[in-house]
């Protein structure tokens, strides 16, 4: 079985190098991601693989490598750049390394609701990011977006219903300068802590809180160690679906169209289960006895106001076109 596998892969790599002399050969897309198979991203990847097989009549095969088994969080971008996989779906903030404009995703209160977000997904602004010079010149092309959800403030100290409540708290973050700037703006601090250590750090008080989606809160069992959840919906965690462009261009046009169709369908499916999943998780968090705070519209305005300096600081980096382009969709 080993040798068959590697034979399959060499074909794929040959394809990637532009050797598409025969379209009878099966085209293999190696899709590497870091989520577990039963997670919404994992399910969507499987769905995408099924749809591609169905639509292309098995001429294109998607091999899904889940759980970071092939490449971890820090290396999948390099893996696709060097052509060792054809497709990844990293958290959007990862693309900041290539194109700083992607920091838009960390801007607080940029997206009003899910409709605003979905409008953005299909907008010209989104296209300009997915097919940007920075990506294309590096041999990448963005094909679409997958969701995780709206993030909320959660912590172990006190109910948060105004920006003042954030003052003095330390929030666990993954990484990112904008996020740090955001918390500093309201007098809070950040601690960069890896996901694997996050639970313990929150339990022991190395960090007081975190900003996560209900799904992440549930998966990480944060509800066991944190008491307060503010449904602030103040930011997003989402994924960009990225393909190796050299490889993408070698797929015959008809097949490429079918793969694109498959991705559109898989994405719609993904958005659906992501939303459902967050809903289920939220119910679980309430059942587990978390105190849920729902900020009023006036509260929300206060937060938006308080975070305004972040927009000013990052307007040049993210560019007015992107920020206004997204705002205008509201």
């Amino acid at each position: 079985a080993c040798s068959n596998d590697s034979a399959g892969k060499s074909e794929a790599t040959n394809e990637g190098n532009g050797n598409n002399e025969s379209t009878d050969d099966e085209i293999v897309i190696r899709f590497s991601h870091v989520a577990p198979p039963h997670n919404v991203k994992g399910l969507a990847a499987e769905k995408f693989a099924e749809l591609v097989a169905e639509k292309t009549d098995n001429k294109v095969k998607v091999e899904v490598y889940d759980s970071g088994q092939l490449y971890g969080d820090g290396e999948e971008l390099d893996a696709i750049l060097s052509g060792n996989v054809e497709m990844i779906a990293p958290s959007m903030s990862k693309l900041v390394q290539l194109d700083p404009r992607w920091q838009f995703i960390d801007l607080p209160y940029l997206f009003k609701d899910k409709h605003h977000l979905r409008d953005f997904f299909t907008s010209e602004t989104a296209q300009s990011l997915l097919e940007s010079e920075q990506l294309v010149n590096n041999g990448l092309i963005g094909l679409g977006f997958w969701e995780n959800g709206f993030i909320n403030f959660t912590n172990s100290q006190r109910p948060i219903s105004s920006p003042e409540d954030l003052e003095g708290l330390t929030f666990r973050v993954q990484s990112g300068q904008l996020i740090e700037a955001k918390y500093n703006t309201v007098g809070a601090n950040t601690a960069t802590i890896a996901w694997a250590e996050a639970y313990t750090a929150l339990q022991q008080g190395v960090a007081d809180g975190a900003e996560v989606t209900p799904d992440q809160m549930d998966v990480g069992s944060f509800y066991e160690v944190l008491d307060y959840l503010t449904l602030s919906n103040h930011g997003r965690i989402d994924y960009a679906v990225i393909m190796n462009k050299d490889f993408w261009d070698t797929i015959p046009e008809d097949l490429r169209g079918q793969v694109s169709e498959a991705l559109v369908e898989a994405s719609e499916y993904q958005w659906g289960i992501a939303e459902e999943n967050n809903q289920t998780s939220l119910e679980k968090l309430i059942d587990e006895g978390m105190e849920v705070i729902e900020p009023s519209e006036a509260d929300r305005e206060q937060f938006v106001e308080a975070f305004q300096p972040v927009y000013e600081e990052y307007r040049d980096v993210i560019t007015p076109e992107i920020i206004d382009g997204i705002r205008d969709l509201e």
Partner: protein
Amino acid sequence: MKSLKKYWALMEDVLSGTFLVTGITLIFYETVMRFLFNSSKAWIGEVSIYLIIWGALFGIAVALRNKRHVQIDFLYDFLSPFYRRIVDLFSVSVGIIFCIFYIYYGGSLVMHNYQTGMSSMNASIPLWVVYLILPTSGILFCLRFIEQFIHAIRGEEINDDSTV
């Protein structure tokens, strides 16, 4: 020649030690700052990781000089001096081959990141600078292997006391 060797070793130690100590001290500083003033900066964590990796990778040449990369003498102990010399030449050559790969691909990673202009997540350091350690440490490592190769050709035994 003797003193050149001495200063070369000193340079290796200073390079490696400085980066390692700076990285560790930076983590300590960050810990103290967070504990006393509840203030922390993400870039410090990132920079301290890079500093320590730099120190450790500069150090692979130091560990080779001190014969501290774990080797297995199981077969070696049974061999006659003649065959030992052949085994020494072989193992050192494999080391040099590794270095060639490491330097070449490390270098091409630097070039690649120079072209794409990627930079680190928190401190925004250009990644090509961060990756410079790969070819650089590879060259230092390789020089130590070449030294051992010359020893082996001259028939001087490469002693090993690989303890940790």
